[in-house]
């Protein structure tokens, strides 16, 4: 019986790969010239419309900011869903971050004894530096490469460094899962309010509220970058800290 089943599965794989290959070849191998209409418009008007010199940030937080909101929602739903699915299983590793109290004493013993000196020194010292770099990437998104998401993930790795390296007595509140969940929820609410603010000043949903007024329009992109960065950083930090099962 096993032989027959293996042959069937091999045939199915071969058939599926052949069908996909036949369909996808024209698209992958076409050498049709790449359209330049969007690039030309953005080169001419990108900076004037959104105020951001980094055109990718101009698109990503200006012209197509709704896609970014969708992306932030996917991240939020994925984090809360992943934690929900893991926490319900009540696994020892997962017990550390159940919905109720997340105090530091429930870390499973298996993780505690394997802490080497290297982890203490490196992560303890590197944590703040990585956090500062994350904030820089987040806040200068409209000038240099980077922005909300990238800065947020670097901040998340900073939070993980702090959570790993903190000694028993002087741990900051930043590494407690409850605190991170609060920052994430507050960040998401303020992102929605920032998006809706465009309606109040008449430039429409996700429009730039400062377009009419004196302040340079780029500050709207900086605000969006900051809010998304905090939300993403807290969200991914929350997931990583939860997955580590609350190391001391």
């Amino acid at each position, binding site marked *: 019986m096993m032989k027959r089943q293996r042959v069937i599965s091999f045939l*199915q*794989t071969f058939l599926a790969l052949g069908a996909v290959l036949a369909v*996808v070849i024209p*698209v992958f191998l076409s050498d*049709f010239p790449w359209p330049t209409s969007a690039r030309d418009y953005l080169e001419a008007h990108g900076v004037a419309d959104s105020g951001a010199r980094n055109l990718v940030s101009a698109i990503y937080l200006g012209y197509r900011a709704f*896609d970014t909101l969708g992306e932030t929602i996917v991240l939020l739903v994925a984090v809360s869903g992943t934690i*929900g699915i893991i926490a319900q299983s009540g696994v020892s590793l997962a017990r550390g971050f159940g919905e109720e109290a997340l105090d530091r004493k429930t870390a499973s013993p298996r993780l505690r004894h394997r802490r080497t000196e290297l982890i203490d020194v490196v992560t303890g010292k590197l944590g703040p530096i990585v956090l500062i770099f994350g904030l820089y990437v987040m806040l200068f998104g409209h000038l240099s490469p980077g922005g909300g998401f990238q800065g947020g993930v670097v901040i998340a790795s900073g939070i993980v460094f702090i959570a790993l390296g903190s000694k028993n007595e002087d741990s900051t509140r930043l590494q407690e899962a409850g605190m991170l969940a609060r920052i994430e*929820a507050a960040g*998401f609410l303020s992102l929605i309010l920032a998006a809706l603010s465009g309606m109040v000043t008449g430039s429409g949903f996700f429009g730039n509220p400062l377009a009419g007024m004196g302040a340079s329009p780029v500050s709207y992109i900086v605000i969006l970058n900051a809010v998304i960065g905090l939300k993403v950083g807290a969200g991914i930090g929350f997931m990583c800290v939860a997955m580590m099962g609350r190391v001391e």
Partner: protein
Amino acid sequence: MKPPDIMMAPVYLPILGAALAFCAKAFFQGRLGKGVEYAGVFVGLGLPWLALAWGLPLVLSGEALQIVMGNWFGGVGILYRFDGLGWLVILLGYSVATAAYIYALGAGPRGPGFSGIFLIQTAALAATAMTVDLFNLFVCLEVMGIASYILVAKSEKPGAFLAAFSYLMVSATAMVFFLIGFFGLYRLTGALSYQGIAEGLRSLPENGGIIALVSLSLVVAAVAIRVAVMPLYGWLPDAHALAPHAISAVLSGVLIKTPLFALSRILMVLPAGPEAGRLMGYAGAVTALAGVTIALAQKDTKRLLAYHSISQIGYVVAAWGAALALGVHTPAGLALMTAAFLHALYHALFKGLLFLTIGTTTDLAGERDVYLLRGAAGMLRRAGEKVPVTLVSFIMGALAISAIPPLNGYASKAALSYALKGTWQDGFLFLAGIGTTASFIKLSRIYWPVRKRAPAPAESAAGKTIHPAVQFSQGLLALLCLAGGLAGPLLSRFVMTLLGGDASPAASLPPQLFSLQNLQKTGLVAAGGIILFLLASTKPGKGLMHLIRRRPRGFQGLFLSFTLGLAGLSLWLFFQSRPVGW
């Protein structure tokens, strides 16, 4: 608050509500948390009805509001369109979501996390209905998908995680193919919105040739997998059967229809669209018949309902595909599209009703097997349901799906067969009607009183009672089914004016709903159903059904059917665009 802002309300209000729900989960406990969560749910599910009411006169007059999100430049920005089709699909989404949430208050999953994800799913439904930008459609489908994977997995049943995992892997892979299709179309035209892509393709020699056809088939196949048409339905039965009841109602009622109508926006505009619509119409008719035959063979009640969802969506896609092939602005095409939407709306109502009532009964009896569960009617009465709301609601749902006159199924199936008359699809749908009646007689046996040699009557577990919110939502859906049936012609005229705009007066409606000819047809279907049911309960019948149930369904089969469906669609488009042949 200019008109474009109110038009977008069904999208951003549920997101705001979800943000409130997540804040309630993170910040507050106890009564304050509940208060903030329900405030978010009211903002998310209550207020958008006002926006719909505001939008009605605008779309009734045939106008359509097309905006660029945030008044940015159209070539790069995101275009949204609020027209009759958008209004109707949002109405469909919100009505089923509200009824399902009321049911969830009573018996379904609870908690701020669930409310937040449910609201985000509703927002994604509304956004998918209104977007006319291809990459934004990708993001909306991903948001809708990820919300539904988690909601399916929330039911903690052993099979639920396997069902959610298969659903996730197949949809995620399909969305990567969608990206390749989007790449092909962006490469040819440099535009992101449907109109921009269509104009770009038309200015190219041969409408962009083979690359355009292949890219369109990639996009259509990726969206069609969420609609569960014939070759691509493998993931649906497990996901819908094992999800919590409220989520099964929303999944079957709305989540397989919104991508279909979003796809109709693409196929109405792009040059090779009508051909793709024609093929999907044929696949829809085959789905209607095949779905019913597999449903007849099922043992598990909710899996039987899930296969019926596939068969009923086959009805909708059959008419929808034919409408696109003829062009929605021709009178015949408009009649077909109206019949398709009418059946989609009515199916959402009666299928949601069936999922909720069967869910309540099987939860109470603790038994989901059609052959073992008996005497559920008595059990419901003993469980403190003085007024048999669940029983009556189930009967109305079963009559509606078998197209018995007073109820809405009859009205929409009459419209379907009138619009499709004379085509082979109509024959398939007629046979599928017989199968539906037979399987619902079989399903309703769980309510029949116990006979001597039947298995022990169902006893509800101690202490389980039926929550008033559960009864309210079931009663609400049952009333909507009845109202839809009685007001059939009126509602189909309303839907036609919304969809057609200028072509509506010329389009013909089924002349007289309760005409002798229609009633004769219904009698025939009912008789055929009873005969088929008797045949099915004979010895060879049971053997055949056991065979159908045991057919191998592996994880690999999902992907193989997806790739073959994809290759079939691109071959069909290729040969259709070469009428001369070589």
